[in-house]
């Protein structure tokens, strides 16, 4: 792949995008294995147990999304700041350090898998906290790489030009690196441990990542739909205010049942009810903009994935979240397949879609094309089928997990009173098992979607469209 015509930041972004897509594939592969182990519990038992495959599945997701975000920021950095990336060599070193660390951590997860509950295990094998199981040495490495990334971004904007997007982005990166530290220290009190752990999980996902995605969306709308910069910047500020207003204390919905004081029930319930407000704002603004701009863009796959992002975020985070967010019902649903159902649609809808859109925005530049229109030599069947299979696959998994989660909350929690008997009764109930079977079927559909997506990303735009002039872009 010839990328000599790209600027320094974009060359580094391509590296991040490649690893992101490899890890996306790994996430799906280990997701399929985990799903199979629900149906065939003896599968790879003693070799790759469910706790290992699930750990790799969810950690691969977090890390590939992080790679996608970092890649996207490097991609837009020089264009947005109108200057070369400051400390690019350090940034490249950071990429290799992070990638080496991720490789070692995954190998340790797969080959060593676990250890006794002591400091050695915590430092070198597995920290034991769901989603952020990386051992302590890797945690420190991640924070160092985030700080290098922050330096690259902030120093570049300081040397070049600041904008509304770059200001929000830079402040958000401070929180991104800082909040991760909350998940790094050890306390023997499980309530305290969970209290800080949720800072990483919730505040990363429902605050810093959302703001980062808001910045990427703002930039993406300018590129794909040629929306005026001042408009997207104004709306970015409004979005940040709405998200922080509801999202930060929405953290309370994770504090319902971990041993924190009772007032978190009220705080969590109240602010969770406010969290859909930005989504209502999004609906009004989307209708307004579609009326003004008639959705005419220069990159069809990117636009399609941006639309998928809007719907996925609305349904995954909004509808699926609110259905079980109040403590009166969350008492029965938390930690069941309900959470998995919400998690699958929300992570895919809110984050995977926007990263894929950003990669599609980058692809024509990489291939020296003007855009990706409807005049592709193959009619664009690969990206269309990938879009359909991935979205239908994830929605199907979400519905299947919803049915299993409904049964689980009903039989295990409400009827069974969260006892072991209740747990096992729920696990062998036909509704649960059939839900798992359907999840597997839709998981395979999702896997087919990612194969097509990767194939398309590797090939789209290599042959110039009939009426499209090949044009090399340097930046």
């Amino acid at each position: 792949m010839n990328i000599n015509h790209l600027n320094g930041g974009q060359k580094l972004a391509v590296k991040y995008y490649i690893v992101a897509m490899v890890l996306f594939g790994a996430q799906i592969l280990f997701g399929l294995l985990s799903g199979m182990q629900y149906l065939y519990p003896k599968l790879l038992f003693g070799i790759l147990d469910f706790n290992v495959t699930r750990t790799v599945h969810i950690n691969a997701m977090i890390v590939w999304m992080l790679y996608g975000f970092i890649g996207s920021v490097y991609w837009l950095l020089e264009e947005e700041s109108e200057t070369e990336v400051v400390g690019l060599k350090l940034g490249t070193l950071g990429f290799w350090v992070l990638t080496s660390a991720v490789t070692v951590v995954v190998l340790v997860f797969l080959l060593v898998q676990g250890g006794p509950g002591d400091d050695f295990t915590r430092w070198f094998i597995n920290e034991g906290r769901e989603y952020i199981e990386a051992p302590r040495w890797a945690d420190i490495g991640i924070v160092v790489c985030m700080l290098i990334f922050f330096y690259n971004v902030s120093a570049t904007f300081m040397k070049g030009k600041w904008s509304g997007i770059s200001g929000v982005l830079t402040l958000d990166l401070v929180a991104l690196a800082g909040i991760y530290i909350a998940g790094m220290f050890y306390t023997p009190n499980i309530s305290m441990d969970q209290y800080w752990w949720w800072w990483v999980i919730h505040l990363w996902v429902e605050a810093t990542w959302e703001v980062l995605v808001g910045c990427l969306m703002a930039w993406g709308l300018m590129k794909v739909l040629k929306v005026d910069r001042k408009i997207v910047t104004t709306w970015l500020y409004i979005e940040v205010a709405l998200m922080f207003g509801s999202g930060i204390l929405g953290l309370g919905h994770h504090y319902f049942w971990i041993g924190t004081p009772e007032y978190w029930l009220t705080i969590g319930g109240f602010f969770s009810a406010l969290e859909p407000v930005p989504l209502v704002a999004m609906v009004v603004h989307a209708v307004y903009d579609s009326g003004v701009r008639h959705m005419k863009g220069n990159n069809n796959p990117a636009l399609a994935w941006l639309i998928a992002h809007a719907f996925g975020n609305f349904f995954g985070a909004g509808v699926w979240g609110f259905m079980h967010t109040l403590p009166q019902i969350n008492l029965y649903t938390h930690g069941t397949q309900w959470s998995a159902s919400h998690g699958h649609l929300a992570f895919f809808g809110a984050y995977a879609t926007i990263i894929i859109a950003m990669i599609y925005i980058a692809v024509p530049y990489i291939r020296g094309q003007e855009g990706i229109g409807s005049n592709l030599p193959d009619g664009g069947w690969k990206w269309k089928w990938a879009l359909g299979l991935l979205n239908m696959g994830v929605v199907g998994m979400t519905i299947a997990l919803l049915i299993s989660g409904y049964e689980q909350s009903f039989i295990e929690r409400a009827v069974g009173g969260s006892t072991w008997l209740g747990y096992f009764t729920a696990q062998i109930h036909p509704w649960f098992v059939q839900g798992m079977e359907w999840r597997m079927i839709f998981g395979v559909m999702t896997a087919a979607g990612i194969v097509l997506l990767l194939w398309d990303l590797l090939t789209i735009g290599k042959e110039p469209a009939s009426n499209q002039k090949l044009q090399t872009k340097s930046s």
Partner: protein
Amino acid sequence: MIEPVELQDFFIVFFSGAMIIMTGALYALFFAWSRLQAKPWLMSLAYISYAALFVSVLTLAAAAHLYGFWWWLVVIMLVGYLFAPHGIWKLCVGTHSTHQGDNPPIPLSSEQTPNKIAEEKGI
């Protein structure tokens, strides 16, 4: 502090919770569409959606035992969802009319729709 949902009300809670977000979005959608196209009949659909939202919120409140302090949550949801699209629409019109490139801002009136503004600006 909280009274958990009764077993027989599980589905009602899930369904009404989903309907709150869906009807809230439909209300926002029809409201914005009506203003965009200047078609008053779409506004009727918007307020029918809001009526459905109202019923969904009260259904959720009854099934999830949202009494006492929690009643305030119900009131805030109903009032908030009613006025949010109005506020966001005003922001849309305001931001777009003052930020269309270097062109001077267009004076706004209740008759102006984004399509008309766009036509005038040749977007």
